[in-house]
C-alpha cells in the first residue's frame, strides 16, 4: 500500500517501442532530440518561475510520459513547447506552489524568443548587434488570451492521455535518505547525486519512466561516490535498497552517458534550432528527405 508513494507507473514495452510520433514517421533520433530539448525547456522555465526542483522534475516526467505509446501525443500534432508549458502549469497547480497561466506564458515567451532566449537550441547566431525589440520577447495582451486557451486545452489533453494519473514519485529525497543510511554526509557527494538525478531527467533512455525511483537513487549514489572518491561500505549495499546488480549496472551506464549525449546533441544541432512546433518538425523531416535524395 504505502509502496505506491515510493513508486511510479512505468512505460510498457509496447509504449516504449511504438511512440505516436514514430508511427507518424518522425525519425527516432529526431524524436529524442526534440523530447530532450522540451525537457530542458521545462527545466529552464521552472527555474525562471521560481518553482522548486521537485515540481520541475515531476513536470518533466509527466511531459516524457505524454509522448509514449501509440495513444500518446505525436510531435506532428502537439507542439512540444505547449506540452512543456502545460505539464509545468499542471504540476505546479497540484503542488504547494501553484503559479498563474500568465506567469507561465510570460516565461515561455521569453525562453522561446530567438533573440533573447538563453537556451542554445532556441537562440540563433551570437548575441544580436542591437538590443532586440521588446515585441520579440514580451507577450501582448491579445497573444496572452490566445496562448492561455491553448495552454488550458493542452492541459486537458495531457490529463486524458495519462488517464488523469498525475502521480510522480521522485528519487531525490530517497537518495538523501539512502546516503544518510550509508553514513555518508559529505555535501559534495550529495550534490553530485542530485546532479546525476537531475541530468537523468533528460536521458534519451527515458530512465524515469523505465525504472523505479529507488533504483535511480542507488545508481546516482553509486556513480557519484565513484566520481567523488568516497568509499561506501564493502558489500553489495544496493541490495539493501532492493536494487540488483543488473539494474544498477544498466542505470550507471545510462547516467554516465548523459554528458556524451548532450555534447553530441550540441554539435549535431550546432547552429540550428530544434523544432518546437509541428510545422518545424515537418520542415526538419522534409529537409532530411531532401538531403537523402541529394546524396
Amino acid at each position: 500500500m504505502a509502496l505506491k508513494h515510493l513508486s511510479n507507473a512505468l512505460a510498457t514495452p509496447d509504449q516504449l517501442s511504438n511512440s505516436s510520433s514514430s508511427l507518424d514517421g518522425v525519425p527516432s533520433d529526431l524524436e529524442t532530440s526534440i523530447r530532450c530539448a522540451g525537457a530542458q525547456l521545462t527545466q529552464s522555465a521552472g527555474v525562471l518561475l521560481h518553482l522548486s526542483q521537485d515540481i520541475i522534475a515531476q513536470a518533466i516526467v509527466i511531459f516524457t510520459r505524454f509522448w509514449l505509446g501509440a495513444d500518446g501525443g505525436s510531435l506532428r500534432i502537439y507542439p512540444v513547447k505547449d506540452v512543456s508549458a502545460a505539464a509545468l502549469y499542471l504540476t505546479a497547480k497540484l503542488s504547494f506552489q501553484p503559479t498563474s497561466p500568465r506567469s507561465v506564458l510570460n516565461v515561455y515567451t521569453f525562453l522561446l524568443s530567438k533573440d533573447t532566449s538563453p537556451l542554445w537550441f532556441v537562440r540563433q547566431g551570437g548575441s544580436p548587434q542591437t538590443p532586440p525589440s521588446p515585441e520579440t520577447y514580451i507577450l501582448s495582451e491579445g497573444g496572452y488570451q490566445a496562448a492561455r486557451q491553448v495552454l488550458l486545452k493542452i492541459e486537458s489533453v495531457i490529463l486524458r492521455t495519462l488517464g488523469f494519473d498525475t502521480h510522480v514519485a521522485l528519487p531525490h529525497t530517497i537518495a538523501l535518505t539512502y546516503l544518510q543510511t550509508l553514513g555518508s554526509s559529505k555535501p559534495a557527494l550529495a550534490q553530485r547525486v542530485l546532479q546525476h538525478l537531475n541530468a537523468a531527467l533528460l536521458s534519451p533512455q527515458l530512465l524515469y519512466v523505465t525504472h523505479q525511483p529507488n533504483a535511480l537513487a542507488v545508481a546516482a549514489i553509486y556513480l557519484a561516490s565513484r566520481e567523488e572518491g568516497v568509499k561506501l561500505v564493502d558489500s553489495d549495499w544496493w541490495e539493501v535498497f532492493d536494487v540488483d546488480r543488473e539494474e544498477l549496472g544498466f542505470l550507471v551506464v545510462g547516467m554516465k552517458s548523459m554528458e556524451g549525449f548532450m555534447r553530441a546533441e550540441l554539435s549535431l544541432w550546432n547552429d540550428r534550432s530544434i523544432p518546437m512546433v509541428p510545422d518545424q518538425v515537418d520542415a526538419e523531416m522534409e529537409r532530411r528527405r531532401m538531403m537523402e535524395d541529394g546524396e
Partner: protein
Amino acid sequence: MSVGTGTKTVRTRIGEGTRHLLIPRHSPILPLTSDLHAKMSSKSRWADEDPETEAIIAQQKREKEQKRRAKAEKQRQLEEAKAQQARQDANNTQAPNGDSGPPTKRRRLSNDATSSDAAVAKIDAEEKAQPSLLRFPMGEWGPCRHVDNFERLNHIEEGSYGWVSRAKDISTGEVVALKKLKLENSPDGFPVTGLREIQTLMEARHQNVVYLREVVMGNKMDDVYLVMDFHEHDLKALLDEMREPFLPSEIKTVLLQVVGGLEFLHSQWIMHRDLKTSNLLMNNRGELKIADFGMARYYGDPPPKLTQLVVTLWYRSPELLLGADKYGTEIDMWSIGCIFGELLTKEPLLQGKNEVDQVSKIFALTGPPNSQTWPGFRSLPNAKSLRLPSSSAPTSAGNPPLLPRSQFPYLTNAGLGLLSELLALNPASRPTARQCLEHPYFREDPRPKPREMFPTFPSKAGMEKRRRHHTPEAPKRGQEAPELDFAGVFGGAPGGDAGEAGAGFTLRLG
C-alpha cells in the same frame, strides 16, 4: 577462473536483467491494451470542437493503429524466428559432440558433460542464494475511456461537487457509480479540486475508502466522469429512514470503519476536509466507505497555509470557524465527533444556521473555551471579537472537560469520554485516528457487531432518485474567507450549564 570470464558473466547478466525487467509485464498486458484500442478507435479522443480536425485526427489514429499492428506482427515473427533459433541452439549444446553450433559460455567453463552439469548446478545455487529483493507494484498509464462504455441507469443525487448516477459497464455488466465533475467556471483550467480528488482517490486504496476504478470522458473537453464502486446507501439517508437509531454495537462497527479509513488517509498525508454522514457510503454487506474527496488534499509538515473554507458547516471545527489558516488532521477528528453524535441521536449534532450560530451552538455544548482548556485560542483571527466570561471558572474537572451527560443518556462512560475528546475545543486535545481506534470504548461490551451481522436496508440509491439532503453544502472554493464578528455568540440564551448567565458575559460591539 580468469578475470576475463568474470566480466563476461556480468555483462551477460546485465543484458538478461533488462530483458527480465521487460518480459513479465509484456504478456498479460498486451491483450488488455489492444482490447482498449478496439474500444477507443471508434471515438475521437481529443474531442476537438472542429469536426473536420476531429475527422483528420481520427483518420490518423486509424492509420497509426494499422501501422502499429503491422509492426507488432513483424515483431512477433521475428521473436518466433529467434525462439526457434534458440531451441536449435539448445539442442546443439545438449548433443554430446555439439561442435556444429557456436560455443556457448557454459561450454567454455569445462569440456565434459558431468562437470558441465556441476557448473549448471553451481549457477543455480548462486541464483538461489540471491537475496529476495522487494519489487514495487508495476503501475501503468493509458488514455481515458469514453463514457459511452457505460449505460446510465438512474440518477442518484446532485452533491455539492458533481452529479452522481448509477450506471452499468457495458462490457462487464458491473454496476458502478458514475460521478460527473462540475468543471464550468474554471478560469484556471482543470479545477484543482477535481485533480486533487482524482489524485487522492487513486492513491487512497483502502477497504474503507470508495474505490475509484477509472476516469472516463465524454465528447467535450469538460466532460469528465469518475467511475467508482456502487454502494446502496449513504449514512445520512439511512439515518433519515431508520425509525430507531443504530444499536450501540452497530455504532461501533460504523465508527471503527470510518476512523479506520481516516487513519489510513492521514497516514498517507491526506486530509479529507469534508467528513459528514452523507459522504459515508454503505453497502448491504455492512461495509462502509469514505467518499467525496472534492475537498481532500495533501498536507505537509510543517503544515502549509490552507483555506479555512472547508468542511460543511455543521461538521466544521472551532479552530476553522475562528479563522485558523494553519490546521491539521484534527479538523477531520472533530467531524468524526459530530458523526459520532449523529449516530447516537439520528440527528446532526450541531445544526448552526451560519458561522456565528455554529460557534454559539458549539460553545453551548462544550462550554466556552478558557486558557486552560484551549491555550492560544485568543490569537486566532476571529477570536478578537469574542468576549467570554471573565471569571470563567473551570466548568468541570478533566481536560478536555466531559460533555454534559444529560445530552447523551444512553452512552457509557467510555463512550462519553471518547466523544468529549473528539469534540475538544483545543485541536491538540483531540485524539488522532490511531489513538481513537485504540480507545477502550471499542473494547467494552457491547462489542462491535460483526459486519456480516449488520442489518440490511432497502436501497434508496438503487431504484429511485435519492432525496436531496437537508445538510448544508461544503463551502465553495475561491470564496473569500469571511471576517466573522463573533460578538453575538453569547447574545442569545446562554448554554444550559452556564449558571452565572449575564453576569460573566459581556458583549463588545463594533
